[in-house]
C-alpha cells in the first residue's frame, strides 16, 4: 500500500510545495517509509535544474550502505567535472543534505549524454533534470522531507507526490518515488500497485538502451513512458498503451512541464479519488488528502477502470 497525490492549477502558480506537503502528510498511514515530491515551478528559464544525490540514506531492508560523508565531497567534485566535460556550465549550486544537491546549469538539449556522464560517478543518481521539474525524495514522512528540503513555500503550477510503504524493495532513496523518466526533461511518475510483468518489460527496455537505477517496479512505468515518448508518441497515447503492455494492478500519475495525467488499470484494483474544477484538479489515493486542501463539501468521484486522463496547467 502506498499513497499518491497530484495537484494542478490551471493557469496560475501557487504554493504547490506547501499544498503537496499537506496532501501527502494526510496519506502518511498509507506509507511511512519514504516521501517524494515532483514539483513543477513556473516555466520561462532556458537553464536546467539538476537534482542529484551522491550517496544513500539507508533504511530497513536496503542493500545500500551508509557511507562516510567525506565521500560525498569528492563525488560532487567529480560530478562538476562531468558537467563541464559534457559542455555544460554550472550557474548555481546548493548542497541540501550531505548527499543531495540542487544545481542550476546551462547545457544543450541532448540530456542523455550529460546524464550518462554524470551517472558514471560512483553512487551518483540524477533525481531530476528539467526546466521546471524539481524532484525531491528521502526517508520519512511528508513533513520531515518538506522541512529538510525547504519545500513548504515552493511556488509552481503542479505537482505529484508519493508516500511509500516498502514492499517490493528496501527502504532507501533510490527505491522511493517519484521517478524521473530518464533522460527526458521534466517527466516524472508516481505509482501505487504492483506490476507483474516487470522483468519481461525491463529486459525489453534494457535491450533498447533504457537505464534502470533500482529494482522497484514503479520505475518501469517511468522508463516505459520515456521510451514511448522517445519513439514519438504523445503523453496520452503512451499512457493508453501502458494499460495494454503493463500487467498487474496499478494506478499511476505522470507529470510533464505543463501537464498532469493519471491512468488506472483494467481491474481498477487500486484507489484514486478525483476532484475537478475550472481552476484546480486534485487527485489522491484517498479523499482525506483532497480534504486537507478543500475542507468544505465538494463533489469527488473515482475514475473508472482503464481510464486515462490528462490535464493542462
Amino acid at each position, binding site marked *: 500500500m502506498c499513497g499518491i497525490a497530484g495537484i494542478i492549477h490551471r493557469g496560475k502558480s501557487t504554493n504547490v510545495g506547501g499544498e503537496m506537503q499537506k496532501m501527502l502528510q494526510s496519506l502518511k498511514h498509507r506509507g511511512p517509509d519514504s516521501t517524494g515530491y515532483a514539483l513543477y515551478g513556473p516555466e520561462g528559464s532556458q537553464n536546467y535544474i539538476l537534482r542529484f544525490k551522491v550517496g544513500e540514506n539507508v533504511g530497513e531492508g536496503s542493500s545500500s550502505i551508509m557511507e562516510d560523508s567525506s565521500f560525498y565531497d569528492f563525488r560532487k567534485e567529480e560530478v562538476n567535472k562531468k558537467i563541464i566535460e559534457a559542455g555544460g556550465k554550472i550557474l548555481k549550486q546548493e548542497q541540501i543534505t550531505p548527499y543531495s544537491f540542487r544545481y542550476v546549469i546551462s547545457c544543450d538539449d541532448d540530456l542523455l549524454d550529460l546524464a550518462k556522464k554524470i551517472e558514471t560517478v560512483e553512487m551518483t543518481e540524477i533525481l531530476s533534470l528539467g526546466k521546471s521539474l524539481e524532484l525531491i525524495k528521502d526517508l520519512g514522512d511528508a513533513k520531515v522531507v518538506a522541512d529538510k528540503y525547504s519545500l513548504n513555500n515552493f511556488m509552481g503550477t503542479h505537482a505529484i507526490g508519493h508516500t511509500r510503504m516498502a514492499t517490493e524493495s528496501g527502504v532507501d532513496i533510490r527505491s522511493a518515488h517519484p521517478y524521473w523518466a530518464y533522460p527526458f526533461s521534466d517527466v516524472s511518475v508516481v505509482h501505487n500497485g504492483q506490476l507483474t510483468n516487470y522483468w519481461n518489460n525491463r529486459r525489453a527496455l534494457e535491450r533498447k538502451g533504457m537505464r534502470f537505477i533500482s529494482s522497484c517496479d514503479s520505475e518501469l512505468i517511468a522508463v516505459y513512458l520515456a521510451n514511448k515518448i522517445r519513439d514519438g508518441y504523445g503523453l496520452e497515447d503512451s499512457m493508453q498503451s501502458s494499460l495494454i503492455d503493463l500487467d498487474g494492478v496499478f494506478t499511476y500519475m505522470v507529470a510533464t512541464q505543463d501537464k498532469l495525467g493519471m491512468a488506472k488499470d*483494467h*481491474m*481498477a*484494483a487500486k*484507489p484514486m*479519488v478525483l476532484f475537478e474544477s475550472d481552476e484546480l484538479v486534485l487527485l489522491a489515493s*484517498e*479523499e*482525506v488528502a*483532497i*480534504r486537507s486542501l478543500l*475542507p468544505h*463539501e465538494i*463533489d*469527488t*468521484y*473515482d475514475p*473508472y*477502470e482503464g481510464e486515462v486522463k490528462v490535464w493542462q496547467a
Partner: protein
Amino acid sequence: MASIIKSDHKSYGMGLHDEVLTGRTQQTSFNSEEAENFFYHDAFKVDFNKRTLIDVQKLNCIELNKKIKDLMKRGYGTIVLKNPGAKHSLGVGILQKLNLIVEGSLGYFGVGSIDGPVVRISGRVGWSCAENMMSGKVVVEKNAGSCFGAAIRGGDLICKGNVGARSGIDMKGGTIIIGGDAGAFTGFMMQRGRIIICGDVGPNLGDSLYDGTIFVGGDIKSLGADAVEAEITDLDIQWLKRKLKVAEINKKIDFKKMTKIVSGKKLWNYDNLEPSERKGAI
C-alpha cells in the same frame, strides 16, 4: 417486527427464492418467526425524536464511534454528524435502530458492519461503504467509491450517483440500488440478493456470480464468467418500480428495456456439505 409470511409472498413468484441455500447452517441458525432474532441483547432503547449533533472535525474514528454508542445508551435515536471530512471508518458497528444523518462525505469503510440503522449521507462515500451490512437502510446522495456494499447480507444500500468497481462483491443478501453508472466487476462472486443499476455498467458484470439478480437500465460493457441474461417479468417490473420509489430515484426508466442478469450456474458449486464435511471428503 412483523413476521415474514412465506407462502403467498410475491418474491416466490419472481423466482427470487430459487436461490435458497441448502447447507445445514443455513437451515438451523436463523428462524425469522422468532422475534428475539431481530434484536441484539445489548441494544439500547432509543427515541427517534431525541436528536443530537456531533462535530467530527476534531475526532478520530474510534472517538466518534464510541461517542455514537454513548449517545445511543442515553436514548438518542437521531444523531447528526457534522464535518465528517471523508474520514475513514465512521459510524461502524451500529447493531440497532438509529437514525444517523451524515452532513458531508465519508472515507473508506464508512458505516460498515451495521445491523439496523437508517443512514443518510449527504456527500460521497469512499471504498467499501456499508461492508457486511446485515439490515437497515443507507442512502448516499452523491457518488461512491469501489466495493460499495461488499459482502452485505441484508438491507437496502442506495447510491444516487455513480459507483466505482466491484459493487456488491461477495454479496449475500439485501439490495443495492445505484442511480448512476457502475464500474467493472459489479456483482463479482455475488451469492444472493439484488443489484439495480439505473445507468451503464463496466466490464465483467456479475463475474462468477453464484446466485442473485442484477438489473441494468443502461448499457453493459461485458458480462463476466457465468453471468447470463434472463427474461424480465411483470413481477420484476413491479418490484423495481417499488424499490426505486422507496430509494427516491426519480430517473425516467423504461423498465421493460432493463436487462436482467442471473447466474448460468455452470460454475455453481454449492452443495449440502459443511466445511468440515467437505474437508473430510477431500
